[in-house]
């Protein structure tokens, strides 16, 4: 059998199982949901086709724009917060000493815990009456800075984004550690002989080696931040008065609380489109950088 045929058969058999599962159980429902987005439908009974009506409503709804703004805050804070911290952590903690093991596990722990616990803890930190943050501020004489951190609409989205970022560092940390493991010791030696150390080694040797991983983590950050849901539901429920609403909580409320199923589906489709746009931008930017 000619080699090319053999590899064709391999491609087919290796790719097909994943494609079948993925198309049936993810793509199909997603397309289905996109289709619902063109209907006015309560989620039961009769549906009425309204074309782009839901999208028109969405663009006119201030809550949608606020949710989008909040999501963008999360995207930016994830890219400038999570990724550098995770990368620094990975660089510092690659050696498998007991100390590093302890720190690594600790950094990962928020990911292991239920978001309910994380949400409650941070709720206590931010609590107005007996929260740790306000107590600490009072202790160092900054009593005038004390706040109802989660209630103040100017601040609360930033307040909420801190625990979200904090608890999501873990996955990126291990992704980077796995990637760094892959740089063989010969390359480290070669770099050392060339005299590349510290920052220079990071920029000229290490980063290019794991660049593929960096790009993937940025994509994951974008996708994750635009789908963010759990932490906000637990900490503020998207409130007060929608000030911490995210696209995903907005979608969920429209679908299951206000019974605008078609509209909720349209919001979900919008999340998909915005994610694609941001990922496209990311790809364009990172490709230029790497060339």
């Amino acid at each position, binding site marked *: 059998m000619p080699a090319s045929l053999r590899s064709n058969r391999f491609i087919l058999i290796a790719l097909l199982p994943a494609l*079948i599962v993925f198309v049936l159980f993810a793509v199909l429902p997603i397309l289905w949901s996109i289709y619902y987005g063109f209907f006015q439908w309560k989620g*039961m009974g009769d549906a009425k086709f309204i074309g782009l009506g839901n999208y028109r409503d969405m663009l006119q709804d201030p809550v949608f724009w606020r949710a989008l703004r909040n999501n963008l805050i999360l995207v930016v804070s994830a890219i400038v917060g999570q990724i550098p911290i995770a990368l620094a952590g990975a660089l510092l903690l690659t050696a498998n000493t007991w100390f590093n093991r302890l720190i690594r596990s600790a950094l990962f722990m928020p990911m292991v815990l239920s978001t309910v616990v994380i949400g409650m803890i941070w709720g206590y930190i931010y609590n107005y009456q007996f929260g740790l943050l306000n107590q600490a501020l009072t202790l160092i004489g900054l009593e005038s800075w004390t706040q*109802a951190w989660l209630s103040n609409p100017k601040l609360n989205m930033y307040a909420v984004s801190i625990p979200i970022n904090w608890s999501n560092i873990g996955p990126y940390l291990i992704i980077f550690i796995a990637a760094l493991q892959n740089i063989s010791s010969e390359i480290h030696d070669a770099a050392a002989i060339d005299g590349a150390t510290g920052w220079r080694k990071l920029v000229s040797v290490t980063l290019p080696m794991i660049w593929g991983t960096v790009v993937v983590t940025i994509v994951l950050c974008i996708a994750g931040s635009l789908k963010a849901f759990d932490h906000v539901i637990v900490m503020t429920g998207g409130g007060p008065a929608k000030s911490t609403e995210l696209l995903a909580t907005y979608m969920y409320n429209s679908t299951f609380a206000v019974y605008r199923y078609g509209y909720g589906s349209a919001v979900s489709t919008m999340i998909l489109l915005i994610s694609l746009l941001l990922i496209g931008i990311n790809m364009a930017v990172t490709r230029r950088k790497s060339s």
Partner: protein
Amino acid sequence: MNKNRFGKTALASLAAMALLSACGNGAEENGGASTNDSGAGGGKVKLTLWHNFAGDDARAKTVRAKIDEFAAAHPEIELDAQAIPVDGYRQRLSTVAAADEMPDVFLSYAGSHIKGFQESGLVQPIQELLDAKPEWKDSFLPGAFDGSTFDGATYTAPLAMSATSFLYYNAELFQQHNVAVPKTWDELMAAVDTFNKAGITPIALGNKAPWVAQSTILGSLADRVTGTDWFKKAVAQDGAAFTDAPFVEALGYFKQLVDADAFDKGANTIDNTQAEQVFIQGKAAMMVSGAWTLTNLATTPEDTLKKIEVTVLPAIAGGKGDANTISGGPGAGFALSKKVEGDRKQAAFDLIYAISGPDAQKAIAESNSMVMYKTDVDSSKVTSLYYKAFELVKTVGITPVYDAYLSAEAGEAINNGLQEIMMGAAPDAVAKNLQDAQARSLNP
């Protein structure tokens, strides 16, 4: 290495997947909530029942016990009872509703929840059952079927009364600070002032789930100002609108409370349980809350609970509504899927009667939970606080709870609006949003 072996491994994994889905196919029962209409297999009648009495509180245990009793007494019925956590209950029902796979009998909330199923033709009335048991039907309190009767037919019989606006107060704190129980609005504002000066939160409120302030405070407050007739007209958008002056005035009273720091500054970000705990620990002097607080506090030690008294919100001078009222209405009841017919329908009626009939109502009342049904409770079986509230309800009028009448969208608008007022918004802007939402949902 023989490449075929690896090819086979991959094929085997494909086959395993096919098998997995075949497993599903082979399952005897169809996966949805509904059972096959025939129920013929083996002469047993199959019924599915969904409810949200899943927790460890007294009421949930009582209802589950009633369900178990029914199952034991009816071996001819194969009952599949599902206790679904409250957090996911509506979502689960919505999903099966979208697929037209309703369970045979399921718990549905009075108001817009059951109305949605009715409008979509997913449920059938239980009028027949009510008419067959007149002594049962007639023992419900007035208004018990208001939230679940459409076109003259009733769809659920309530298992609970959601009395939503008791004024709970800590008598010990009132005494210590020489404050009289407020009978008028001015007295309430004075009490707020006194407690604030003493460093005690005047009114505990946990409004993170934004329906709380609406359900507990606004409904009662607004009714005192506008009267009930106005509200019903405004809901129907027939000769009244939520932008009318009296309603804006009512929102203004709520704003007065906010401006006087009656609530904790973080009230919008703590939940109801946290607020209850602040109150029960004596860190807050009052709490405006519903009958659920009686259930939640049922495990509190009696000597703490004894300090708590319960009354109605104060009167508002010049208001059109009756002052000696609390807002309340029928709670959830069991609804019957449209698809249930014949033997199964009779069995379903028997089931509904067993878990919401006279015995069940009494048992529920004695699990520290209000019912919409004339029954007596043995005071030794309930907490002292519950007994006080139970007796109080007998002497007061009941006014509508806002979100039981408003459309889902309008309910969301007023819930958010109250949070906005707590963040500094003006009452008339909030009133306009509510008006727009209600008008839109009546004429989409």
